């Protein structure tokens, strides 16, 4: 039956993380030197500490030694971390999502045996996915949907009982820090997923991608690099037990990243409240001016709506009967939620910057970072013009 209460475990976990973020994350993350620098290396020490709190294994079932959180729990948790630092949340979220899917659904017993212990014991053990997220561009094919397969860039062939993989995948979140790679590969006209150790001599990891670049700006969060496969040899036993693993992964990733985006908006919102309560102009603290009050209210409305839909979406993805029993509409909820969140949080960051006046554009202050973070979300996982058309495709149901 309908119920919007979080479990006590979820509530405790969230409140523990909120405290952790306030006490440990904000100070280094919002250090003015770090804020001013174009390149912001990941806060490695905090990444390890967050791993130790159980976040890497958040989505792994309890019976396998994980926390056993569902997608909703991931949303709750990642929003909190992102209030402190979006890049940390992206990094830990990627590993947690992939580990959850892999150990719960995609892995054979053999593969579990091979990797589970290592994963649980090594707090610096991360995962990445060597495939392209096509959410950002699929809408351009409207009104005809697009063949998902088109975007697999890795090709493999079977050579004397081994699988040999070739190809380059650009822009892989967690690429530089991962020990294991889940890779979608085209093998003899079929699409397969494989688990591959990055230490494989046939894999070359590119340099970490920087935000600043003389010829192109690269809007991204977390730690990214390319991975190049040159005659990368693996065993047939490394094949995963799934036929639509990439769809499952990207759908969840979109929701998780929207939760992280929500955290950025919340950080901006909380900063605005704090600042407008102490900034004194026009005869009172500026929060008492109607003009500011309206902005505060608009931010709250956007944040609450984004979260309500996001939680609903996370629930629906984990509980398909919510759609099959018609409690919710059969629509691409993850795109509905993430498109709204991206636009709404950009507006929230913008409104907050307006509350800050000149302080909103100073590079040694947090606001400009929130604003930049929110702009990146607008056109990375979803594309602000085209992605929505996938919603229209589903509504129109033209086939």
């Amino acid at each position, binding site marked *: 039956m309908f119920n919007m209460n979080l479990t006590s475990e979820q509530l405790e976990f969230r409140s523990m993380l909120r405290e952790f973020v306030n006490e440990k994350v904000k100070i280094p993350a919002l250090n003015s030197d770090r804020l*001013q*620098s*174009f390149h912001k290396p990941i806060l490695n020490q905090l990444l390890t500490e967050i791993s130790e709190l159980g976040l890497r294994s958040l989505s792994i079932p309890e019976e396998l030694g994980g926390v056993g959180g569902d997608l909703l729990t991931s949303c709750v948790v990642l929003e909190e971390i992102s209030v402190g630092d979006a890049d940390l949340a992206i990094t830990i979220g990627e590993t947690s999502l992939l580990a959850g899917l892999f150990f719960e659904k995609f892995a054979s017993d053999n593969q579990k045996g091979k990797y589970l212990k290592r994963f649980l014991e090594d707090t610096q053990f991360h995962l990445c996915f060597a495939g392209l997220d096509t959410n*950002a*561009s699929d809408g*351009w*094919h*409207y009104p005809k949907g*697009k063949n998902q397969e088109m975007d697999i860039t890795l090709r493999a062939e079977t050579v004397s009982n081994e699988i040999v993989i070739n190809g380059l995948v650009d*822009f892989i979140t967690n690429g530089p820090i991962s020990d294991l790679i889940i890779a979608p590969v085209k093998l003899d006209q079929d699409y397969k997923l494989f688990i591959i150790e990055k230490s494989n001599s046939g894999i070359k990891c590119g340099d970490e991608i920087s935000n*600043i*670049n*003389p*010829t*192109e*700006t*690269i*809007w*991204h969060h977390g730690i990214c690099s390319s991975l190049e496969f040159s005659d990368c040899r693996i065993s047939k036993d490394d094949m995963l037990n799934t036929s639509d693993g990439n769809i499952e992964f990207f759908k969840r990733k979109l929701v998780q990243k929207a939760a992280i985006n929500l955290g950025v908006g919340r950080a901006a919102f909380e900063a605005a409240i704090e600042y407008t309560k102490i900034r*004194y*102009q*026009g*005869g009172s603290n*500026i929060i008492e*001016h109607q*003009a*500011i009050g309206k*902005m505060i209210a608009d931010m709250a409305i956007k944040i609450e709506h984004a979260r309500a839909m996001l939680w609903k979406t996370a629930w629906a993805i984990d509980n398909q009967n919510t759609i099959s029993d018609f409690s919710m509409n059969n629509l691409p909820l993850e795109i509905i939620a993430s498109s709204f969140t991206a636009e709404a949080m950009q507006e929230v960051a*913008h409104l907050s*910057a*307006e509350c*800050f*006046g*000149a302080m*909103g*554009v*100073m*590079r*040694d202050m947090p606001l*400009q970072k929130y*604003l*930049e973070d929110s*702009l*990146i979300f*607008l*056109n*990375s996982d979803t*594309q*602000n*013009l*085209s992605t929505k*058309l996938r919603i229209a495709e589903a509504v129109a149901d033209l086939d």
Partner: protein
Amino acid sequence: MMDFSLNDEQLSWQNKARDFSDSKIKPISVPRDQIEGGFDPFDWSVIEEGSKLGFRTLAVPKEWGGPGTGFVTQALVMMELARGDSAICKAFSQNWKWSHLIVNACNEDQKSRFLAPFIEDHRYMLGRGITEPNAGCDNRLPPKSDPKAGYRLKAERDGDDWILNGEKTFIANGSVGSLFFIDARTDPNVDIIHGGTLFLVPKDTPGFRIGKIFNKAGWRFYQNAELIFEDARVPNNNVIGQVGTGSVKAAGGDTTGGDLFGDLELAANAVGVCDDANDLAMSYASNKMQGGKKLVEHQLVQLAIAEMNMLTEALRSFVLRVAWEHDQGSRSANGVLMVNYSTDVVLKVTRLNMDIHGALGCRSNPRVDKLVRDAMIWCHLAGDSNLRLKAFSKLN
């Protein structure tokens, strides 16, 4: 009779600015933007080159050795320079703002002491210090209930001099200026409209120094700095107008600075940014493929480009009209309405340009990102809620 055509002088300045913008400003625009730090993106050489062509002293009347252009010409030149780089354009036009002030409000002695070196020295930049850490909006719309609101920098008479103590913040051209107009309280017991006085303060004034240079997300070339006054000694003949008649009135205009010019400056600059964004969008969309055809063949992109151009042309029309009204000496709410409007337009147009460039995911022309960051500056200069409230107050 209604006529939108440009005269020869206007066309000539427009062309000159266009050439300079294309050949000297645009090529350094992104490289300077990508230099870390607060001061480092600045570059004297482009200022000097532009100055030699008249772009630093454009607003100085002919009798004082300047080109003596009107507001319409100034708007046209800003549109061109800003198309190359919004921040570099502002570094030039900031000087026009205060040369308007010298001409309108200073006495003959002050004009000859300060306009002459300004004309001669290609590195002579002007700035004005109003804002203080605790006095931003209060300088624009001083609350009637609180006479202490607004700037607090103190000026006390000492013989033929004034002793200034206090601190200004975010001051434009602060780190590169040779001469500053400083708003100070000569009577701390009344509000700034009645107890404020405006001083001319050259950079070598004893007791006056530059503090922190601000590192901004947008307009990175353009300099903003703290000005610190510790028993700074300024001669009485550097007082503009009368003591205690209020620095606002002394400056012959409103508290946003620069009389009528302030609003026009930002709005015309925004037109240039929008023109640049439109060029970028059209050229990108005409070449990149997505979903089996060029971006420009997609209706969503066509709608975005049409909207960008629509807003740009609406803004350009508004700016030209107000520039003309300014040349007629007409004052109305139109100036502040226009500058509010320029904020909405420059934000929207640069964002749509970003959306179009986002069509291929996370990689983009860095100029696209720069324009969005530059546009954010308008939110706190030209169209924040305080200035919008001010617009209302002028409607009555």
